[in-house]
């Protein structure tokens, strides 16, 4: 499951896309241009992208409410997505949904919409895996959730049902140690949530989510196993939450020391070191990729700016299937 040098560079490119898209969203939110809620994925790009990079055509996935790069990685058009984040008429969702946070769906690329209540999408992911099984497809579902969501009752029901049905499901639990302002010690009575897998009879693994190659390899193996009929796997990826819960959160519950400690390791910088050591990346190449992604994002923002405001007509249709 190891990657070629070319693929390793491609992975780096996607990590930067995720990071820069996130920083751009933060900037746009502060400018008042984003219509929707904004939950940053800074510092955990390695999980969203590392795991997403292991998906194959035909697989389905349910993103976390943070990572945005994975939507582009899996085939959504960046301009369309950006215009959607702006809430524009021509954009994804036509101004209806918080693009990049929740409710983006497209069955043609296996994207199952996630709901805004943390943990709620979990059973829908189990159902997507059930669909793949019943359709006898050689594919699997990658379902992201977090340590906060793991406390939900339907997550238990979903895990239990997925285990009983031996479904092709890989559960990617991003553990950043916080449920908004509540520390893990007040929400999770065990050190690692992966231990709960024992209770369902499937494998549970805890990994360093800041190590993108580890995330990619572990996810690849789990997806491979699931596609072969080997059943579900729970992967708990430990990360640091760099930012507040959301752009609306004043983050008053952490000390300056804690905020600083959370940012001590930059997982993307760590990956750059690996690439530099392997002579895959040098300053010139880095510069080139930075430029390319910045240009793509600037173009997307310019496109979104040019798009128009939706009106009543854009809001009211399509509640039910319409004729024609």
């Amino acid at each position, binding site marked *: 499951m190891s990657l070629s040098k070319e693929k390793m560079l491609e992975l780096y490119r996607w990590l930067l896309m995720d990071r820069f898209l996130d920083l751009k969203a933060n900037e746009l939110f502060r400018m008042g241009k984003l219509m929707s809620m904004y939950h940053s994925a800074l510092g955990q790009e390695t999980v969203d992208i590392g795991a997403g990079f292991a998906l194959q055509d035909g697989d389905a996935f349910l993103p976390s409410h943070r990572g945005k790069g994975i939507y582009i990685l899996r085939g959504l058009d960046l301009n369309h997505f950006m215009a959607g984040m702006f809430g524009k008429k021509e954009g994804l969702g036509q101004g209806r949904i918080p693009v990049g946070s929740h409710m983006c769906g497209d069955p043609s690329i296996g994207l199952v919409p996630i709901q805004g209540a943390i943990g709620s999408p979990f059973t*829908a992911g189990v159902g997507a895996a059930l669909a793949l099984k019943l359709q006898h497809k050689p594919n699997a579902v990658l379902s992201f959730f977090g340590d906060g969501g793991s406390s939900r009752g*339907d997550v238990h029901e979903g895990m239990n049902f997925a285990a009983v049905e031996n479904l092709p499901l890989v559960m990617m639990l991003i553990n950043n140690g916080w449920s908004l302002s509540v520390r893990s010690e007040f929400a999770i009575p065990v050190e690692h949530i992966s231990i709960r897998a024992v209770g369902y009879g499937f494998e549970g693994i805890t990994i360093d989510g800041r190590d993108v190659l580890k995330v990619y390899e572990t996810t690849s193996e789990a997806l491979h196993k699931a596609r072969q009929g080997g059943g579900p796997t729970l992967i708990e990826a430990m990360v640091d939450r760099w930012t507040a819960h959301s752009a609306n959160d004043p983050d008053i519950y952490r000390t300056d020391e804690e905020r600083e400690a959370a940012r001590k390791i930059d997982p993307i910088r760590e990956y750059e070191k690996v690439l530099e050591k392997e002579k895959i990346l040098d300053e010139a190449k880095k510069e080139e990729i930075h430029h390319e992604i910045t240009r793509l994002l600037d173009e997307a923002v310019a496109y979104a700016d040019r798009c128009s405001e939706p009106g009543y007509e854009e809001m009211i249709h*399509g*509640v039910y299937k319409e004729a024609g």
Partner: protein
Amino acid sequence: MRELYFVEAINEAMIEEMRRDPTVFILGEDIRYGHGGGIFGATKDMLEEFGEERVIDTPLSELAISGSAAGAAYMGMRPIAEIMFADFMSICHDLIVNGASKFRWASGGEHGCPVVYRAAFGAGVGATIHHSQSPEAWLMNAPGLTIVMPSTPYDAKGLLKAAIRYDDPVVFLEHKLLYRRLQEEVPEEEYLIPIGKADIKKEGSDVTVIATGAMIHQALEAAKLLEESENLSVEVVDPRTLLPLDEETILESVKKTGRVVIVHEAPVTGGYGAEVAAVIAENAIEYLDGPILRVGAPWCSVPANRNLEREHYLPTSSKIAQAVKQVASFGGGV
């Protein structure tokens, strides 16, 4: 023509649709072996014909049933999720009202979620407080959702087949009292009944009674009684699809009679009848001779005592007849 019980019509509809379309499957509690195919027998013979893959006994997990059905529907399947008792729809609420019913709208009308949530509802069989309720009003305020409530075996079969082929989520409520008490002719040839179309169960000219589920039969009995004793001509309208409502058929009937009584099993306050009354008041108040009356359960829960349940809690034909007589006295009387 052969006759079928209500539950047999449900069973036949599902079997026919599963034969026709390989993406249809069913999941729920105790549907394989319990009581020989569901605790009401609705899934009888399905395991034998379609096997364990398409007839899935689930753990006792309404959240997993409702959520996984929504996810599977989004990804190309047509699940029938059996929720054993409609009271348990409250457990499923999240994935139905925040998920399945919003998926199409969220995608700008493109991607639907063709799932049917079937559930046995209703009082009158001594099933008591948590196995007897009518939950339609709990679900009424959810754009994107469709609620179907058939009152006869013929309607049940045609509507369930249409619901399975429907491209958006449907909550399909089956009255458990009717399951094995009501038998009628059901053709063997295939037929569908369109979702969203009300049916006039009995024509009349003096008063319109709009009733749902098992209450249709109480309303028909009341109509017969009043015709014989009071020479009143009662029209009985069965909405069949409660959401979205067939306003046209209802308004047409009300405009004709000028008097209306709405009957349902759930408590009157905040009930489905309030919505119907509002639609009539907004669109046809100038045609009305008197107040819109509602007959439903009082503001309490379903009692265990048989007499309390049947005579005091549930609307009966005599309570409906009383309301009809009351409204008939307006507009110069009939």
